[in-house]
């Protein structure tokens, strides 16, 4: 038994002594209640521990036990549809142990030990297996087959494999290594959370497939690739959490890992209420069935907040290794960075920027680099991805602060949330002039390619127009940018004093904002916009712009166009439950109304 004693307690930081062979990252049990902590510094014969539970009542002289293990995640069937705290304990088990309020010192396994899963082997005895190979399958939820893989560090001849119902700790296979050692495999494996799981040698693949999110401003203007990383910074009330919820709900990932890191308890309660009710638009199954939740709310111990992000990404990598597209939402990475700062401060480390330690950028880089599209380790060959979307909560909403700055260095997509848009209830409040996506050019072809995923019958029709899609997108961007300049002039001289072609820019930009960019997360129809609807809506507005351009060239006053009934319809058609059909209908009406107007002025226009 490696036991030492406590010599200092300052908040969640405990210093101990008396275990000479303690290692960095080792999990220790502190005090008579066995509070879980992790060794983060070793100074001569003492060591510093960050404890994941409140430390009230500890005193110098209390025992510290070394467990010899690092902080690991338990990986295996039973993760989906579940909610865990920052160190991987199922919240339901905590309720059973201590009621609705979390008491400390409770031990609970991540994976249920008594539940039996139907294991179907996919390899035969006598075959040679190595790390990452799939040896069997378990139906984890209706739509997710959980692949049982050989742990990365095991290889050898399979001398025994089981079939039938087993728990995660039952031995389901035995492997004889080259040295003649027999290794027993279970459906569960453990992995140290701070280490990225290995992939096939040279297995990093290019990012060329978009993650379809059903959010127009993201899919069309600032898309994120499967395996990419996106940052969404914004002050409070700008809609970070709702945007992340929307992505968790509607993105076309196979598995979603949602980390509530230092955020509100009621928001996690909302996810737990909503997700079982909502259906995945592709499979028709409850969204909860593909979701893993990690909840470490703001009032739970700050050090476990630091760990929660690593537990989440390890689970995401594990499903990626099965060949799934996983998306991970972390809300909010600022709270994680603050937890790092707080622990660093208690250790007396030298702060650099705003109290953050000098290694903050390394930590952020390490985390986002665990995103990627990869060839997984082992046989059979398979490709999986982890997409990371990280919310950032900059103090005062000012993006010029360390966490935002460093996050932008290591992510490819920037969705800038704008308080002015949020105040006028324009959601998602993603500012189209400040945001960017480094993936846009690579993957927009993929966006058009994804149409058929939702609606087979439209596929052929789309093939004929898809080459135009980029043209529409660029035109829309150009109009929005120019209109912003015109608006600032209009703010001084008044809209009425502008020439008609500039007023048209304002009109189109208004249509784009109201009819396209603005998307109501709580409207049954509008909450999810399938790719063809997004593209068609954009086409409707840009086509209308071109038609009006011709009309006003013939000296028909723009005021008459603005008063056309179809203008309000373009703004509202996104809510129409007939979706694509309704948009096509409005496009027809727009053309007819403009022609009628031209007729009234006895001019001829070709539109």
């Amino acid at each position: 038994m490696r036991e030492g004693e406590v010599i200092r307690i300052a908040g969640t930081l405990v210093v101990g002594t008396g275990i000479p062979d303690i290692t960095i990252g080792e999990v220790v049990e502190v005090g008579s209640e066995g509070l879980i902590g992790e060794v983060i510094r070793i100074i001569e014969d003492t060591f510093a521990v960050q404890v994941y539970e409140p430390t009230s009542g500890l005193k110098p002289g209390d025992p510290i036990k070394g467990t010899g293990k690092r902080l690991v995640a338990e990986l295996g069937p039973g993760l989906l549809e579940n909610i865990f705290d920052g160190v991987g304990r199922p919240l339901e088990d905590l309720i059973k142990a201590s009621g609705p309020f979390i008491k400390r010192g409770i031990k609970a396994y991540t994976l249920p030990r008594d539940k039996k899963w139907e294991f179907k082997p996919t390899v035969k005895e006598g075959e040679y297996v190595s790390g990452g190979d799939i040896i069997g399958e378990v139906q984890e939820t209706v739509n997710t087959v959980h692949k049982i893989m050989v742990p990365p560090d095991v290889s050898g001849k399979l001398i025994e494999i089981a079939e039938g119902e087993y728990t995660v700790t039952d031995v389901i296979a035995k492997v004889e290594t080259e040295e003649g050692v027999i290794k027993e495999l279970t459906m569960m494996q453990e992995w140290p959370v701070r280490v990225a799981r290995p992939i096939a040698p040279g297995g990093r693949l290019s990012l060329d497939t978009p993650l379809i999110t059903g959010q127009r401003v993201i899919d069309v203007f600032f898309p994120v690739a499967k395996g990419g990383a996106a940052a969404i910074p914004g002050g409070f009330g700008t809609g970070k959490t709702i945007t992340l919820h929307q992505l968790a709900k509607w993105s076309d990932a196979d598995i979603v890992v949602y980390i509530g890191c230092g955020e509100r308890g009621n928001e996690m309660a909302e996810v737990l209420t909503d997700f079982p009710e909502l259906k995945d638009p592709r499979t028709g199954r409850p969204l909860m069935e593909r979701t893993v939740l990690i909840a470490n709310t703001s009032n739970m111990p700050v050090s476990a907040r630091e760990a929660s992000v690593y537990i989440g990404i390890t689970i995401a990598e594990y499903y990626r290794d099965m060949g799934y597209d996983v998306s991970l939402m972390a809300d909010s990475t600022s709270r994680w960075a603050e937890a790092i700062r707080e622990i660093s401060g208690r250790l007396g480390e030298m702060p650099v920027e705003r109290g953050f330690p000098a290694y903050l950028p390394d930590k952020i880089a390490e985390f986002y680099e665990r995103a990627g599209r990869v060839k997984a380790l082992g046989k059979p060959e398979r490709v999986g991805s982890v997409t990371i979307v990280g919310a950032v909560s900059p103090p005062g909403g000012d993006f010029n602060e360390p966490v935002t700055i460093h996050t932008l260095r290591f992510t490819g997509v920037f969705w800038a949330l704008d308080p002015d848009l949020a105040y006028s209830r324009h959601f998602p409040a993603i500012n189209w002039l400040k945001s960017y996506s480094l993936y846009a050019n690579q993957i927009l072809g993929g966006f058009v390619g994804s149409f058929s995923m939702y609606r087979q019958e439209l596929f052929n029709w789309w093939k004929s127009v898809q080459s135009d899609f980029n043209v529409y997108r660029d035109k829309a961007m150009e109009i929005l940018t120019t209109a912003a300049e015109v608006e600032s002039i209009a703010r001084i001289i008044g809209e009425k004093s502008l020439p008609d072609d500039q007023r048209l820019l304002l009109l189109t930009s208004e249509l784009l904002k109201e009819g396209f960019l603005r998307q109501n997360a709580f409207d049954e129809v509008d909450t999810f916009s399938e790719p063809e609807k997004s593209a068609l809506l954009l086409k409707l507005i840009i086509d209308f712009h071109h038609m009006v351009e011709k009309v006003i060239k013939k000296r028909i006053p723009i005021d008459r166009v603005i008063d056309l009934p179809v203008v309000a319809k373009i703004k509202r058609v996104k809510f129409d439950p007939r979706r694509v059909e309704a948009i096509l209908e409005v496009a027809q009406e727009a053309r007819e109304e403009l022609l009628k107007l031209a007729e009234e002025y006895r001019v001829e226009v070709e539109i």
Partner: protein
Amino acid sequence: MGVDVRDVSGLIYRGIREVKGSILVLDPIPNVLYDEVVRVRAPDGIDRLGRVLEVSKDYIIIQVFGEESGLQTDTVIKFTGSTFEIPVSDDVLGRMFNGRFEPIDGMGPIASRDKRDINGEPINPKARIHPNNFIQTGISAIDGMLSLVRGQKLPIFSESGLPHNRVAAQIARQATVLGEEEEFALVFAAMGLKNDEARFFIDSFKLSGAIERSVVILNLADDPAIERLVTPRIALTIAEYLAFELGYHVLAILTDMTNYCEALREVSAAREEIPGRGGYPGYMYSDLATIYERAGIVRGKPGSLTQMPILTMPAGDKRHPIPDLTGYITEGQIILSRDLDSRGIYPPINVLPSLSRLMRSGIGPDKTRDDHKDVADQLYDAYSRGLKARDLARIVGEMGLSDRERLFLKFADVFERKFVNQGEYENRSIDETLDLAWEVLSILPPEELVRVKEETLEKYYYKAKHPEA
């Protein structure tokens, strides 16, 4: 001379290595617990409460709550062997205490064997029930556009000189849950409040009869600042007990959180910690969260705890660390505006930057009315356009506006005067509020109301436009 300790029983310790403001540094003593409560008696004979902030084999650091002056190295410390606990019972209703939970209403202290740690324990997120019961406050701007729900934490961001106290008192007076007779139990915690402000609240509770179901905890401006660190925690421990043990629906008003944060900064500075923004400690977010997150509804427990913290934004700056960190934790914010106040609008709620995050789960058919959500969205949209027009009119004059802009400008004026503005004792039902909203919206032509569904327009708009028909 020395400290008289004849009346103190048990183990005591005399002699302090260092006194730094409210922080005491002691030589090591065996068996001192982290976070333990201590009693501190200086030669002046006054007893103060304290808490162990840090303990090691070389030193002990103690935080003293209470009067600093008079502390010296010849001070006696008594270690109590337990963390900060208070007795709880239903006798607290109708009572008044100081910021250390000592009675100030002339009656005896609360006696109960049931004791609770004032730091509480975090609610398991899975044990939470997502709040969805609309609370009618009778204030149109709140009910119509920033609806409060039971179990929410919704702060008021104000400035010195604005009527936040009157607004909070009006809410406390009028808050009811639709369809339920039961009234809220009130827990009122004052931190660094001026005497007359505290008096105002107490008088208001007395006047409405609410005092019978209230608990008042007062740390006034001239009470020790450090004590403010425990005041809200005592209040919330009582509130949790009333809500989750006795089944009351509790509304907790915490004011002024700015004073709390300043006390926190004071302690941090005394400990020579690395200061964060504005000198406030880096852990202020986590610290505030342990207060604000103590609101909600819990599975299997009868009552609910709704929080309304009040804070004054230093220099009216919403980006100041105190409102900023609060906004990141709470479920929205009600922002009062000096501009509206100076134009005589009461309550001077600036609805645009205000927000209620839980609104949508509490409103709609069966809860308030089917048009509620659309109306709220449309009011936001039209009002923000109206304000833009008002800005423009300041430059080009009203005559320079287009007809459309002039219409929105008119809307903004009427909206402020009729919808936001109301009497301090005027209690509007949600139906009255929504009907009023339609009356104001009817200034605009139907095609401008793009945030309202067509069937909702059919149902309400034309009726409001032509009331005689």
